[in-house]
């Protein structure tokens, strides 16, 4: 079936607008789109979106992570193997993280990472035919915000929710951070790490995030104030 931008799409639909744009200039096909001989076909169910000038993608629901390059993810170290850490990132296989890809690490000076630790890292290599590889430094060798995440709490959610809360127009984090202080790391692989002063506050953040998945912007705002008032009322 032929579809337009903004339509609800199913796999097997095709969009001529993209092909038409493609004739004029280069277009970027995001997730859920695929070019075949004659048309640009949809691969996932969701809503077809366009960002000007030439980026197209499908907003779809997904829980299972498929590694993709240069995304920040949260992983759990499951094994030390030779000079590698094996990190579970929720994909089809574990990702490799070298001892040397930490800030200031040398052969002698190894980073202190234990099995079970939570790691915030960047996807360096992610291709369907290769084992994914992570790094905890940027291209300048600085760690930035990457590295081991201590304490706090990690929980899983759908990949959409991550995208939703990271979207600048989403009011959730904006409203929450005004209420009480907390730290948060969101991995594109559907994991969120949070840490606040007290456990109750940590749980409150987690609850607010998970609760926001199916709420509209206004509802999110109300929810945040509600949670805050409860917290304020009973903080021990």
């Amino acid at each position, binding site marked *: *079936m032929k579809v337009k931008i903004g339509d*609800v*799409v*199913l*796999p*097997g*639909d095709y969009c001529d607008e993209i092909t038409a744009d493609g004739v004029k200039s280069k277009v970027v096909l995001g997730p*859920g789109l*695929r070019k075949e001989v004659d048309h640009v*076909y949809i*691969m*996932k*169910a*969701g*809503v077809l979106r366009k960002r000007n000038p030439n980026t197209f993608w499908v*907003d*779809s*629901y*997904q*829980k*299972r992570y*498929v590694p993709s390059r240069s995304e920040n993810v949260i992983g759990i170290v499951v094994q030390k193997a030779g000079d590698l850490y094996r990190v579970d990132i929720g*994909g*089809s*296989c574990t990702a490799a993280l070298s001892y040397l890809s930490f800030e200031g690490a040398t052969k002698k000076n190894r980073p202190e990472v234990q099995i079970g630790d939570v790691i915030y890292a960047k996807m360096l290599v992610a291709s*369907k*035919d290769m084992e994914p590889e992570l790094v905890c430094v940027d291209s300048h060798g600085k760690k930035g915000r990457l590295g081991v995440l201590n304490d706090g709490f990690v929980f899983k959610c759908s*990949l*959409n929710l991550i995208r*939703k809360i990271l979207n600048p127009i989403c009011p959730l984090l904006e409203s929450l951070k005004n209420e009480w202080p907390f730290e948060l790391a969101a991995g594109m692989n559907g994991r969120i790490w949070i840490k606040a002063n007290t456990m109750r506050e940590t749980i409150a953040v987690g609850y607010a995030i998970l609760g926001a*998945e*199916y709420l509209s912007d206004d509802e999110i705002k109300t929810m945040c104030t509600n949670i805050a008032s409860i917290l304020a009322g009973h903080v021990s």
Partner: protein
Amino acid sequence: MVAEDFKDFKLKPMKCELNYLSKSDGSAILAQGETVVLASVNGPLDIKITSQSMEKATLEVLFSAKGGKPNVSDRFKESVIRQTCETAILGCLYPRTGITVTIQELEDFGGLLTCAVNCTCLALLNSGLSMKHVVAAVGCALDDSGNLVLEPTYDQIQSAAATMHFVFDSRAKTLVTGFTTGIFSEGAYDEALERCRAASDLVFDFYREVVATYCKVIG
């Protein structure tokens, strides 16, 4: 959600809930009339090296009847669903991984396999796996007097001379899978095929409606 009258075709009322199971990557529960099926999709996952394929994802389909001992016809159902899904999923995007589809029969009042195929398709949509196209299964029965009945009821199936089930893809509406029981003439087969092909539109519309409802919240 009830599919309304359309081109004088009428399918059994369809009801569906996506993401029914929290642990699965994608799941759906679908009722077509009184027949109810629950399907779950997991993947792409890590699997044994022996069953890995360099070219595409290995698809494993498990069908579980409501109760009783496993039997040969369960394996047949698995094979039908596996081969149908294999044409729909773009397995080449996930080489060396496994995709597991598990189907649980909940109620069988006829048309179990068509319901299972549709339910699996919905679960796949929910899982976010890349697909070439969606598929829709439609069944019909030929009664003793030679009339075709679309989506027969339990009683109609029991008294039917033949039943025919077809699965179509959403792109060109070509036949992906077909299976029949009973004896029928060539003409009846052709007519059944065309009517089911036309009726498959209803199923595709239903899919779109389902996706539309949840798109509002994920957007």
